[in-house]
C-alpha cells in the first residue's frame, strides 16, 4: 500500500506520521508542498504542525499551495485523504470537509491525551476496529470545531462526525470537551467518507513504551481496510 505525506513549510509531524505509516506496512513518500503532481497513492496524509506559521488563519495558506490542487482532485475522485491537527485545519480551509477550527475556548494551548468515541465505523478508517473508544494525543491551540447550524444539521444527517471527545467510558459531555468544540466533535468526514479530518494524533500512540498503542490499532486496521 502506498501513502504520501505532504510537507508544508512549518509542518512538524510529517516525520512522525512517516514513521507510523512505515511501521504498519505503508510504502510512504514525502511530498513537498510546491510539487505539482501527487505520486500514485492509496492514502494521502496532511500532517500536523504550524504550516506558514499559522499566519492569517491556521491552514489557510497551505490550502492554496500547489500540491493541494492534486490532493483536492485525488479526494474528489474518491482517494483517501486524512488530515491530522494542522492537516485538519488545512482540510477545512480547502472546503473538503465542512466547518472551521477556532481558537480553543479557554485560549490555552492544549497538550494531553484524550479519549475519543468513534461515531461512524462505516468507512475505510474505522471499519472493523475492535475498540469503540480510543486514546490519542492532542496538541493544539485552534481545535475548537465550529460550523453553522445548517452545516451541523447536514453533518449529522449524513453521519459525518467521525469521533467525539469523551471520557474513558465514552461519555461525551461538556466536562470532556477540551477546547469548546461544537458537540464535542474531534474529527469529521466529508459526505463520501473518504476524507477524514481530526485534531488528535494517532501517530503519537504507536509505542507502548512511549505513550500507548491505540494508534497502532488504528494504523493496522487502516492498512487492512485499504488492502
Amino acid at each position, binding site marked *: 500500500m502506498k501513502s504520501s505525506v505532504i510537507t508544508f513549510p512549518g509542518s512538524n509531524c510529517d516525520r512522525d506520521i512517516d514513521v507510523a505509516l512505515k511501521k504498519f506496512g505503508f510504502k510512504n513518500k514525502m511530498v513537498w508542498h510546491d510539487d505539482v503532481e501527487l505520486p500514485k497513492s492509496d492514502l494521502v496524509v496532511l500532517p500536523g504542525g504550524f504550516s506558514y506559521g499559522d499566519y*492569517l488563519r491556521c491552514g489557510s495558506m497551505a490550502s*492554496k499551495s500547489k500540491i493541494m490542487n492534486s490532493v483536492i482532485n485525488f479526494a474528489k475522485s474518491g482517494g483517501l485523504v486524512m488530515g491530522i491537527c494542522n492537516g485538519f485545519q488545512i482540510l477545512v*480551509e480547502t472546503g473538503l470537509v465542512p*466547518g*472551521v477550527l*477556532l*481558537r*480553543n475556548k479557554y*485560549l490555552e494551548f492544549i497538550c494531553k491525551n484524550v479519549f475519543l468515541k468513534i461515531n461512524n465505523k462505516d468507512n475505510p478508517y474505522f471499519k472493523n476496529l475492535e475498540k469503540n473508544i480510543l486514546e490519542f494525543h492532542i496538541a493544539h491551540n485552534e481545535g475548537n470545531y*465550529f460550523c453553522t447550524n445548517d452545516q451541523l444539521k447536514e453533518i449529522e444527517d449524513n453521519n459525518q462526525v467521525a469521533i467525539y471527545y469523551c471520557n474513558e467510558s465514552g461519555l461525551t459531555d461538556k466536562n470532556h470537551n477540551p477546547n469548546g468544540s461544537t458537540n464535542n466533535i474531534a474529527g469529521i468526514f466529508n459526505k463520501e467518507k473518504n476524507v477524514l479530518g481530526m485534531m488528535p494524533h494517532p501517530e503519537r500512540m504507536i509505542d507502548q513504551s512511549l505513550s500507548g498503542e491505540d494508534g497502532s490499532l488504528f494504523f493496522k486496521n487502516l492498512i487492512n481496510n485499504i488492502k
Partner: protein
Amino acid sequence: MKVSAIITLKKDVLDPQGKVIHQTLDGMGFKDINEVRQGKYFEVDVKENDPIKAKNIVEDMCKKLLANLVIENYKIIETQ
C-alpha cells in the same frame, strides 16, 4: 491604488480573544463595555488604478483567502 478591508467575526461566532480583552479592559476601569469583538484589517496596494476595479480585485481576495466566510464577514472600507 490602496484598498482597505476589514474582516470581522460573524455575530454568532465565539470570540475568546475579544472576551479576554473585554475582561482586561474591565479590570483597568473601563466599566461601560457591552462586548469586545476582535477583527483584522488589511491594506492592499494593487496595481489597478480604477477604484471600482481595484475594489473588485480585493473583494475577490477577501472571498478566496483573506476571510473564511463560514465564520467571518468582510467589508471594503476605503480606496485611495
